[in-house]
């Protein structure tokens, strides 16, 4: 296990390194740069050039990359070009804000989706299953920004039950209750989207397992249905769900730009779009790194959880044989 983990981590580092090179090239290949966006084109090109020179953007791309990776290895994510603000000062608070929002939405949706999906797998096409299907379709079909605006109009502007947007009311920055109130609407919007897919996965996965021979055998042997579902089926059904959850982990830090925009939530998704428009290379690279690391961690966690959930799964050692 330890050897496997070390190998995986080393592989991941290499992958991340390659990703940085590729992303760096791609980002710099995009037309327009920080100075073009920063300066009104009503000015002479010499000013653009001077600005680029002052910012070190006139250097060859490989030199810029080495500077960047050198700083990164020392834990420095760099600075924004436009106003020379440390990326880490901008990035971490936003990741924190997004984790709060997305984490809450994720948790809410999981707590509802998994039990409900499992229940529905035992009562296929029942009222609960039909309701869940309807909610799933709604979740898939409804554009989040539209749903968000709808909730704002109705529950905030008209009924005045919840705050319209932002993360805090001015002057109540430390209040958990205030944060909770600000979370309700965006979490509802996001959770509906997550709920739809997780519920479908949970239901489908359970149905597949319940159809297996060993379940039939168990049932034939007279094992109680409750025991069949929870003892025999659930563990196996959770494996594909865990895979999905692992792969979805980067969403927790990546944010949902549209929802963050509608609710003016100061998170990563919104920031990433802003930075992309402004061609803030260092900021975009920082987001890439963080997301890539999260993808790797998500995958690793999924693999580890397999073992926890199903002890039959063994993480193969080098030279091991696949069963």
């Amino acid at each position, binding site marked *: 296990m330890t050897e496997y983990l070390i190998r995986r981590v080393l592989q991941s580092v290499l992958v991340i390194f390659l990703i940085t090179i590729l992303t760096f090239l791609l980002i710099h290949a995009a037309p*327009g*740069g920080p100075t073009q966006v920063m300066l009104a084109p*009503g000015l002479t090109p010499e000013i653009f050039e*001077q600005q680029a020179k002052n910012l070190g953007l006139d250097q060859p791309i490989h030199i810029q990359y080495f500077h960047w990776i050198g700083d990164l290895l020392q834990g420095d994510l760099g600075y924004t070009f436009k106003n020379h603000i440390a990326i880490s000062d901008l990035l971490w608070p936003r990741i924190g804000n997004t984790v709060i929002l997305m984490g809450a939405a994720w948790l809410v949706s999981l707590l509802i989706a998994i039990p409900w999906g499992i229940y529905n797998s035992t009562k296929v096409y029942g009222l609960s299953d039909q309701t869940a299907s309807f909610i799933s379709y709604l979740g898939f079909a409804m554009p989040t920004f539209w749903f968000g605006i709808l909730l704002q109009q109705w529950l905030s502007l008209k009924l005045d039950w919840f705050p*319209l*947007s932002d993360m805090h009311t001015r002057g109540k920055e430390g209040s958990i209750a205030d944060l909770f109130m600000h979370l309700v609407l965006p979490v509802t919007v996001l959770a509906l989207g997550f709920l739809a897919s997780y519920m479908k996965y949970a239901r489908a996965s359970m149905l597949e397992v319940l159809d297996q021979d060993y379940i039939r055998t168990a049932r034939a042997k007279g094992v109680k249905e409750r025991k069949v579902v929870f003892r025999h089926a659930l563990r196996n059904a959770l494996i594909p769900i865990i895979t999905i959850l692992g792969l979805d982990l980067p969403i927790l830090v990546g944010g949902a730009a549209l929802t963050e925009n*509608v609710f003016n939530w100061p998170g990563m998704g919104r920031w990433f779009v*802003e930075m992309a428009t402004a061609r803030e290379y260092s900021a975009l690279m920082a987001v890439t790194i963080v997301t890539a690391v999260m993808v790797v961690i998500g995958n690793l966690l999924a693999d580890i959880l397999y073992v926890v959930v199903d002890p039959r799964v063994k993480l193969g050692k080098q030279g091991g044989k696949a069963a």
Partner: protein
Amino acid sequence: MAKKRKWWSGLLVLSLVGVLFTGCSTNNTAGSSTSAPAATTAPAESTAPDATEAPSADVPVDGGTLVTSSFSDIVNINPLLVNDTASGDVAQFVFAKLYNLDREGNVQAEDWSLAAALPEISEDGLTYTVKLKDTAKWSDGQPVVADDVIYTVEMAKNKETGSPLISAFDKVKSVEKVDDHTVKITMSQVYAPFLYALVQEIVPAHVLKDVKPTEMQKNPYGTDPAKTVTSGPWKWTAWKQGESHTLDADPNYWGTVKPHIAQVIYKIYADQNTEVQAIMKGDTDHISAIPVTQVEAVKADGKIDIIQKPGAQYEYVNFNFDGKNFPDGYGLFQGQKTRQAIAHALNRQGMVDNILKGVGALMNAPFLPDTWADPGDAAVNYDYNAETAKKLLAEDGWVADAKDGILVKDGHRFSFELQYNAGNSRREQVAAVIQQNLKDVGIEVKPKAIDFAAWIDQNVTPGKYQALLLAWSLNTPDPDAESIFSSKYFPPAGQNSGWYKNEKLDKLWVDGYSTVDQAKRKEIYKEVGKEISTDLPYVFLYQYGQAIGTGPRVHWAEEDAPEPSLGYGQFFHAIKWWVTE
């Protein structure tokens, strides 16, 4: 001054919906009655505004917080580097300018200006003597002195700084200290727009004197509130990036007129739509741009007052005269009659009525209507007339192709690409109208929307396009537009990106800024208006603006109301505004 113009589009590209404005204007003028719907539809806690708000609305009260907002954050508020609207907004509150503009756009030494009186301009128009008030102070208690002005001008004109102010100050030959509060600026040539360059914030020499020009951008002055020493009525206390700025009234502010409002919060919303929702909810008190699609909804809400008036910006279609941009090097817009035909073919009034919802003014020259340089009837007005257009095209040798009706001349089809920036819904609509209008006279237009940064880099700056749809935002009321239209400023040396050459105009622009005699200048710009509207490097479309919205808590006397026709006029005389709780 042409060089101080900036591309409004840079801001607009960030917006989801084009910023337009409609209908009549109302405002929060003290004593003026609140509009009728307010009395009937306002929620309980703010009902009967006439009855409850009248006393406090009439009499300024001190204290309270004004929440104003934007949909983009600042870049840098160092006056040497300010070049975007949000940074300019915040700078308005925390920096005093040497001079200020009055509502008509005249340069004035106001109570809150750093200068004590209007500059003395020598008879030859070459020297400007600026006298500072001896009471003005920086927020760290140091006096504002001649050295600060000298430092600011020198840094602005130093190429190494990369300051956007360079175009306003590069004709300064020298700047000298006469005494601690007097500065003499000598020009290398007579340059009339320079007076407007003095409507400028200055930076503290005692804070920045050791910063190398090339390091200015990386210096925390302008990006760190704790290190940004200011001179205005409010101090920059806090910046939560991407969220808000806190500006607190400076208790040691030197001006004789003190601000009533104790605190200004400058909030940043993700986009205009979110901002509009916020003002309706009362989360913000003042927004500078309500999208045209939402103006009616905001009006119907009744709580928000809207000020609508054409602003200091105009939209145009720019023709490219460089044959290299066309197949076989055959420039489609070479013929003057062809360009005039296009002007006749476009239903500009229709655009104003239907897209700008009636608020906007047709333009025939690059001078805003009703300003002193407006040439009036001297400029040629092209009425919407497809028949005249067809006639002119025929006279210029264009013949309709038998197959599809598209015009052909010397074997070249009249088909071109019209570029504009993606994400600007107003421009999308206008492009569609242009496409249809020109199709009616046998010209094929292929509209193409491009990401702003990429567009500027690849097409606009190097002058590589066939035609484009864009706008200019005029930062000063001076009519000089040499850097846009003179052949001195072909790419890559300048912003005449359409490669337009007209020797008569080249000379007239120089004549225009080479005298400080206003009457003479007026005559010259009249001639410019006549020539440019005949020759048509652009089809000037219309002057447009934004709808400013303010909530019921904000008040001002009539003479201090926001003035949309001025750059940053949404905060005109904010020092005299007050808020009620």
